[in-house]
């Protein structure tokens, strides 16, 4: 790829890069193109390869009980063929982590773990916006939010399957 096209891809206007280009093309030594905006570490082409199937553990079959439990915990219906497929693909994707040797390495919670936790002083700066918040709810009674009485128990697996048959998803 030519210098100019690379630069154009990177969004540099041609007016700026032309003097640079002259410098480069006129130089006697064969300096590589990558010297000026080469500070990026991102390679031009992908360098990773997918992990071969042989190295992965055997694929996990998600039993129906577990699907039911997951649905109950997350309140998300994914009982369809598509949903289960998606779940199994996601598990397969995560299985690639098994290839990495993590013995003796402390797990991290996030990449921002070494940041300092910001502590706030104990002064009142927020609140007093009941009206704004209540407007967000369809159902309010005298400045209270309205909810159904207690948790509505999730119907059993069979009942839910019957319900989902008639839904569009």
């Amino acid at each position, binding site marked *: 790829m030519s210098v100019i096209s690379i630069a154009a891809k990177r969004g540099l206007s041609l007016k700026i890069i032309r003097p640079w280009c002259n410098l480069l093309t006129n130089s006697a030594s064969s300096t590589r193109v990558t010297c000026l905006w080469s500070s990026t570490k991102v390679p031009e082409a992908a360098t990773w390869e997918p992990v071969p199937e042989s190295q992965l553990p055997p694929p996990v079959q998600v039993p129906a009980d577990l699907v039911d439990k997951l649905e109950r915990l997350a309140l998300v219906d994914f009982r369809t063929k598509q949903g289960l497929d998606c779940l199994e693909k996601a598990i397969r994707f995560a299985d690639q982590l098994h290839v990495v040797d993590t013995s003796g390495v402390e797990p991290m919670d996030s990449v921002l773990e070494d940041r300092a936790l910001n502590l706030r*002083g104990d002064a*009142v700066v927020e609140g007093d916006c009941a009206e704004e918040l209540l407007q967000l709810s369809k159902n309010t009674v005298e400045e*209270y*939010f309205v909810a159904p009485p207690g948790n509505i128990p999730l119907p059993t697996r069979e009942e839910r399957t019957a319900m989902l048959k008639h839904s569009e998803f």
Partner: protein
Amino acid sequence: MNKQMSMLCPKASRVIRRISTSSLRCDSQPQPRAKSAPQQLVGVVGLEVHAQINSNTKLFSGSSVRFSAPPNSLVSFFDASLPGTLPVLNKRCVEAAVMTGLALNCTINRKSLFDRKHYFYADLPSGYQITQQRQPIAVDGTLTYSLLGGTKRSQVIRKTVNIKQIQLEQDSGKSLHDDLRSQTLIDLNRAGVGLMELVMEPDMSCGEEAAAAVRELQLILQALGTCQGNMSEGQMRVDANVSVHKPGEPLGIRAEVKNINSVRCLARAIDYEIQRQIEVLQRGQTVQNETRAYDSKSGETIPMRDKEGLQDYRFMPEPNLPPLIVYEDNASLPTGIDACQAVVVHKIREGLPELPGVKRDRLVQTYGILPEHSFTLVNEDGLVEYFEAVMKVTKKEPRKVIGWVTNELLGHLKEKDMSVSHSLASLRGEPPPEAESTEQVCSQTPLSQAHWSGSQRGETPDVS
């Protein structure tokens, strides 16, 4: 006999440090004679205390903390869990937790982590509670409390409870159930308020011990100023985990008792639950691992509805909060750190006020009164100040003053349903004159004057 074999407690984190012995039977609870078992079943009680931190603002947001306010007026966008809001930790709450940890002889974790505990309920708008499950701020402490035992209830018996951990967590909102219209009204004023959860090991064996421990904890927290400890206002909530077993055998299945609104209710609820479980086992049935609510009117515990077996809270690290670091002393502070961003344990330790246990010992030392009297003095709010104020002006022996205070003064106050701090205010209003006898001194105080003259005339005094 095998029907009474208890099963291992399912919660793996309950480490048995001391097997509770029945050698010191609780005096208040007459143990029924179990006809069939040679060795009696004893109760095992572990408490979980949620203490609301006494701070101006909530744990992760800058909205105000107040007991009564118009519904949803103390709610910020973060408390309502509107998208795009993030938690910012309140320094005062961290200091309160460290102070409480130090007062209870805990090890303060230099680095503690925040997690999310997921469950669905209308008063938890975000669907999760930010808590510290993996690595809390303080662990491994002890709470020393005293019971009045012995034949005449005059002997002070010292006991300890081990504290597993103290963690910071968010409170949920309040739900008011409207059964008529089959709906629940949600008030989020309390959502997000900082709580200290104190998890105690199951070292206690009856309601009286639990009540004494909670009372002592109340006094400690009030002395520190980290929690006002008012159970009726919900500033301190206690849940009891009760099970029964034969001493030496593994712990039985536990039931959790909730909805306890006072220290007295706590003792009654625990005793009822122990009794109920003993009867269940004697009938040959098994105790269910369930949550029960205490009904103060009937004095019974009833199973709570809405329980779908064991909850899976799906704990995960809180991604929006890096680890909380507290520093031991000024020397260990990293360079360039702002003073208002650092919590220094050494400074907090130096600033600890006089704890109730220390105060009791000091009173015994200074005035030579009996331990059980200093127990009564410290137990009543404001009585120590009253006593010391009287002692300043009287030439009488402390024991005589104690006698008057405990018998006559407290008796009068209970009759008129007034608190000691009330009368202390009126005592401070006038400087007491020089007096010879205790009765003279005490009769000089406006309250006592009014009392004694009023009681003669048979009318209620007017003390402003």
